[in-house]
């Protein structure tokens, strides 16, 4: 079997199955075969990620993670799942029953919707839309609605506070998220994710020269995108909506049993989706990172890059403490927004200058300059010093 055949094996199998099914149900079969693998793969990825995250965080804090259930504790998600399933499902008396019930379902559903436009391999995308990016961000915005439904429907002050925080945070960070991806759209000249991946293909020697992350604006855009993505998926250090030390569990305080598990699933699915988008926009999608590695199937590369970004999320979570609400907002509007605007500006220069070292330098200057200046201005002349404690020393 050639590498080409291995690369396209899922596409070929799908076409074969569709071809051999009766003509009337062919569209339905085609749809099912596109959607079903996503519905299986990403939740199982969620299960694997939870245990890897707990183990990784443990190691970062110099302790073993879960290591009891199964070999090296890798069956832990199974035990967690059974526990969530057999728990009592409590709905508060004062809750808006319908909204309370619909919120977790809507969250997971919108998270799944986002996968429709992410190419997980060569020719492997559910819906190859022309305006895929718009669709992705629209679905992401629906997630905020479901989170607010959860907070409002629970009729609990903590839930409502968490939901308000979530909405404020997600709307604030949606701006830099979208603006940093606009830079990519400007250069690629398309909103379609498959076209964006195609524009980044090709090698310069062995290097993937065309990946947008290897340009000054792409590098800055990627970092800003990932920061905004962390806030969008409510991950530490931006996990204020579910800050357990302040507001218990935020918007899912009143959820128990399997609905609680659904919230976790939705959160992780959102994180995978947005990481997948980051891979697509900046890291060349499913393309191999080095020219002599192209024999490895494209879908393996996509998931490898995805997992690398997830590892980054976990690393950040193990490192940074939670921000305060005003710090969060200041960071979004005073730092992220100007930075993304200058990234767009830099991408504009990049588009109209001839390629070469000069272009690289000219595009890097405004970004670095603004970064340094903003850093100084936001510190406001304050100096960070080692704090001394009068009585604790």
């Amino acid at each position, binding site marked *: 079997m050639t590498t080409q055949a291995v690369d396209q094996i899922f596409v070929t199998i799908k076409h074969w199955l569709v071809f051999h099914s009766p003509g009337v149900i062919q569209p339905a079969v085609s749809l099912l075969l596109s959607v079903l693998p996503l519905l299986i793969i990403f939740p199982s990825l969620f299960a694997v990620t939870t245990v890897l995250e707990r183990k*990784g965080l443990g190691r970062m804090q110099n302790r073993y993670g879960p290591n009891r259930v199964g070999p090296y504790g890798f069956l832990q998600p199974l035990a967690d799942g059974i526990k969530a399933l057999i728990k009592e499902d409590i709905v508060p008396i004062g809750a808006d029953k319908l909204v309370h019930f619909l919120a977790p379902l809507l969250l997971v559903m919108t998270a799944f919707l986002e996968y429709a436009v992410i190419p997980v391999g060569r020719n492997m995308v559910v819906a190859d839309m022309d305006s895929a990016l718009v669709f992705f961000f629209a679905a992401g915005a629906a997630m905020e609605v479901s989170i607010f439904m959860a907070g409002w429907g629970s009729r609990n002050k903590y839930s409502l506070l968490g939901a308000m925080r979530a909405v404020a945070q997600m709307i604030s960070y949606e701006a830099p998220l979208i603006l940093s991806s606009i830079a990519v759209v400007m250069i690629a000249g398309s909103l379609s994710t498959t076209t964006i991946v195609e524009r980044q293909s090709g090698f310069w020697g062995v290097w993937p020269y065309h990946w947008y992350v290897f340009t000054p604006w792409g590098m800055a855009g990627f970092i800003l995108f990932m920061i905004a993505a962390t806030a969008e998926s409510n991950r530490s250090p931006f996990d204020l909506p579910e800050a357990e030390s302040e507001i218990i569990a935020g918007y899912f305080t009143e959820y128990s049993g399997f609905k609680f598990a659904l919230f976790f699933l939705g959160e992780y699915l959102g994180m995978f989706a947005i990481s997948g988008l980051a891979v697509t926009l900046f890291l060349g999608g499913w393309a191999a990172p080095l020219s002599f590695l192209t024999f490895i199937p494209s879908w393996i590369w996509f998931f490898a890059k995805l997992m690398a970004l997830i590892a980054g999320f976990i690393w950040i979570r193990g*490192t940074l403490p939670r921000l305060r609400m005003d710090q969060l907002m200041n960071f979004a509007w005073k730092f992220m927004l100007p930075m993304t605007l200058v990234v767009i500006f830099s991408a504009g220069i990049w588009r109209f200058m001839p390629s070469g070292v000069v272009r690289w330098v000219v595009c890097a200057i405004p970004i670095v300059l603004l970064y340094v200046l903003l*850093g100084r201005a936001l510190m406001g002349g304050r100096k960070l010093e080692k704090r001394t404690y009068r009585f604790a020393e």
Partner: protein
Amino acid sequence: MLGIGIMKGLVETARNFFGSYTSKQRLTTVQFPDERLLQPEATRVFPFLVYDTDDWEKGLRCVACKICEVECPPRCISITKSADKKPDYSGIYSGKPQFYPEKFDIDVSVCMSCQICVEVCPFEAIKMDNAFELSTDDRFGGLLWQKERLAKPNSYYQAIHPTDAAESDAALAEKKAKAEAKPAAAAKPAPEKAGAATER
């Protein structure tokens, strides 16, 4: 510059992450049921009744004087004195028959491990154990320990608390020597509580 602190933090956590796989010293967790730390000698959790020789029923040191029952702050000890006397099987009461506890119960859930019963016992009959896994699925019967369960040999005491056991044995030996010397001098039985101040 902005972001330097974050970089330092990331390096630190990365060092922890990889370090925990290479150096055992970083992982301070004791994986409890599999590996256990050696308990300090002074560990005390719950009292037990000391007996000499190999028969717990005959060799029990307790004479049911009920001092511990009265002194126990949370009142978790309950003793019924026997009607008859049993022979001095353990040989620390100069051969005289003694009363014995017909019933000696301690409630695990009430005991607060204060060791006052041990301090007040004049006969070195009750001591603190260091066994701490006392959980049970029977919340009434399983937490009220009868004397069968409380009785443990002196050799066990010597094993878990060597220093204290040596002191206790020395005090008993001294008492015994005094008791033997007295009848020789006064030619009449020594009072039961001669030299009762067993200092620890």
